[in-house]
């Protein structure tokens, strides 16, 4: 079942992106180059093939199979005329007439939107068949499609070549994935480490004024969107020059021959603001969640037994309540882990960190599909992995769940 989830989880997203590829390719960065170069580039990138194994549309009923092999201007003209006339035979015939004719600048005729005008020009009699347009049809494209080639490449361990830089996608990703992963895992651990003391404080001194003030503060923190928080942090700490806000290492320090340890120490101040931005809202959510978990343990019998044995509430909380209450926390953490990837988009872009989120945003602006797809693939892989981990950890930690399943 889990393998199923993993495979399907991966298959979905590239397909969704592939659909976008069709819409995006019109506005891609090849617009300025001449038609011939554009055609070649498309062919090299494999963008001239059909997207998926089958097409489901109302136009495809009347669309010839090898339309994709035509040059772009002819393809567009034939598609448009097919759509307007309702049958592709007339559109193809018009195309042939134009190509055979000896008009000097005949390529201009492909720009004509109304097929009737072209037909008049050649004295061609059109036969309308418009109702074809309203019939949905399933069209089999064969194995020679973009998705299939992407899948075959993936099987061989190739993620393709980036359009923007010309490097293999795996090279582009190598430097970027680790930072996002480390920030995600580190941020999660950090927020738990901060949230547990706050939750215990709430549990023990819930009615004190300090607890109420912290509670209100956390309530407001939950509501602040992360992009607002990021700019607020930059305005408060980075603009006056208290903390660095951009990059991962001082360019000056980078040139000096530092040892590994010195390098890590030099990086730390650069990570302070991003880690605050990563953790502020999860601290707020988690501390309240742990607090409710602790409260739910109060109704258990062992709590009453412990009290009647003469243990203080403090002792009970630290020794017994906490270990029992934290069991559901693992599942929640593992389920929330994929959110680190979407959170990283804003944070890495704003703090100029070389991570996957920033890479994703730049490749979106370049329409760099292989990189985008690889990013989504990695995210899907890690989210499936963390869902699996969520099940597994809670089963490992709590034998009751194992016995329930068996």
């Amino acid at each position: 079942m889990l393998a199923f989830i993993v495979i399907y989880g991966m298959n979905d997203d590239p397909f969704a992106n592939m659909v976008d590829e069709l819409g995006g390719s019109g506005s891609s960065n090849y617009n300025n180059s001449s038609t011939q170069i554009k055609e070649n580039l498309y062919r090299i990138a494999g963008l001239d093939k059909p997207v998926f194994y089958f097409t489901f549309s109302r136009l495809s009923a009347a669309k010839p199979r090898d339309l994709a092999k035509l040059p772009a201007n002819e393809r567009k003209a034939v598609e448009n005329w097919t759509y307007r006339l309702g049958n592709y035979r007339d559109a193809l015939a018009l195309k042939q007439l134009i190509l055979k004719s000896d008009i000097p600048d005949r390529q201009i005729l492909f720009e004509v939107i109304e097929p009737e005008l072209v037909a008049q020009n050649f004295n061609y009699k059109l036969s309308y068949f418009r109702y074809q347009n309203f019939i949905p049809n399933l069209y089999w494209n064969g194995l020679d499609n973009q998705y299939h080639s992407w899948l075959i490449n993936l099987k061989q361990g190739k993620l393709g070549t980036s359009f923007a830089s010309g490097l293999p996608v795996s090279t582009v990703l190598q430097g970027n994935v680790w930072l996002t992963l480390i920030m995600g895992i580190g941020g999660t651990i950090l927020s738990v480490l901060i949230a547990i003391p706050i939750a215990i404080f709430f549990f023990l001194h819930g009615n004190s004024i300090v607890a109420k003030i912290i509670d209100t503060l956390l309530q407001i923190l939950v509501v602040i969107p992360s992009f607002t928080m990021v700019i607020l942090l930059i305005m408060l700490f980075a603009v006056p020059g208290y903390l660095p806000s951009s990059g991962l290492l001082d360019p000056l320090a980078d040139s000096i021959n530092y040892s590994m340890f010195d390098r890590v120490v030099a990086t730390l101040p650069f990570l302070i603001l991003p880690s605050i931005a990563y953790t502020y809202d999860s601290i707020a959510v988690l501390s309240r969640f742990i607090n409710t978990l602790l409260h739910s343990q109060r109704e258990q019998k062992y709590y009453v037994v412990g009290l009647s044995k003469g243990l203080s509430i403090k002792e009970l909380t630290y020794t017994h309540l906490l270990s029992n209450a934290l069991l559901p926390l693992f599942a929640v953490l593992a389920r929330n882990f994929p959110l680190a990837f979407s959170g990283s988009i804003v944070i890495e872009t704003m703090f100029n960190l070389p991570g996957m989120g920033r890479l994703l945003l730049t490749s979106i602006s370049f329409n760099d599909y292989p990189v985008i797809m690889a990013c989504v693939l990695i995210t899907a892989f890690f989210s499936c992995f963390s869902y699996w981990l969520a099940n597994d950890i809670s089963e490992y930690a709590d034998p009751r769940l194992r016995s329930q399943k068996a």
Partner: protein
Amino acid sequence: MSKRNKLPLILSITTLGFFVLMGLFSGLLTGRGHLIPYTPTEIHLNDAVRLKPFISDHYLGTTILGRDIAAGIVTGANYSLTIGFFSALITLIIGIVLGIMSSLSWRVNYINRRLFWPAVVLSIPYAVVSTGLNTGVYADNLLDFTLAILSATCIFGILIFLFLMLGSVIGGKKTIPFKFNTSISLLIILLDSAPKLLLLVIFIGLLASGNIITLIITISLLSWIGVTRMIRVEIERQLKFSYADAAVSYGISVPRLIVKHILPHLYPTLIINFIYTFIGAIVSESTLSFLFAGQMGDNVTWGSIIGLSKDYPDDWWLLVVPSTCLVLLILSLFTVAKHFSDKAQIQNQYIK
């Protein structure tokens, strides 16, 4: 039970009403001769660049291009609330329909084999027509029309046929399983494998359009999962109560039971879901217009005003004014949602 403090609820409803009125009458508030004498996209390069708030008739300051922020806030409220409301509405409708369908599956579990031949009969004309189209059979217009109508109705036939064939191949039984439940949960797994915001950023970034309808549809197609799951769980919980058993023993059909008797019980849950989707949509929209400020058309939204402040960190009002609006709006929505969830909790104590 202690009496609850009503003050936060009243305050948040007032704030909400304020923003809704602002959004509704954004056309009447901005422009020459109105309360805010500027439109949000008006450029004043000479006289009013980077003005601070409260020092001129640009009440909340201006941007680097001299655009009035107060006008931008008002139209941004319109934009945010429209997107939030409609995407929450569409999400809720999708969620209710799919939730009911997936909870019905235990009842509509098997399709009778008698449907097999009707399915075949229905699917033959479609097959004929589509092959006819592909080989290019030409005919008179009237005939085409009837053929088209026939085949359009028969598309359902071929779908049923495919379902039947698949079921009989897999199960090898006389009756064929027809489970919405599994197909919907498969769809949920597919969409759940990557975070919503990531997919949204990719889609909107590649489309690069600030078109309000595109945004609404994209957001609602990506956020129905939670609502569907919640409604399915709730309906299954309600079906275990004795009133559902009693209704079934009276001979009521299960779909009727769900629509007539269970859905009214769920209305606090539905409203909470509506509000949370509303919040999610507003946050996603402003995150998008923050990330792609300037690329998503000429719309002035709260997110795009905040997005300007990343280039001009000295202009604090660019951040503070729209952020305050955003935080106030979300906070008040949260408070209203909390009110409803308390209500639902009280209600659940009495249902048996």
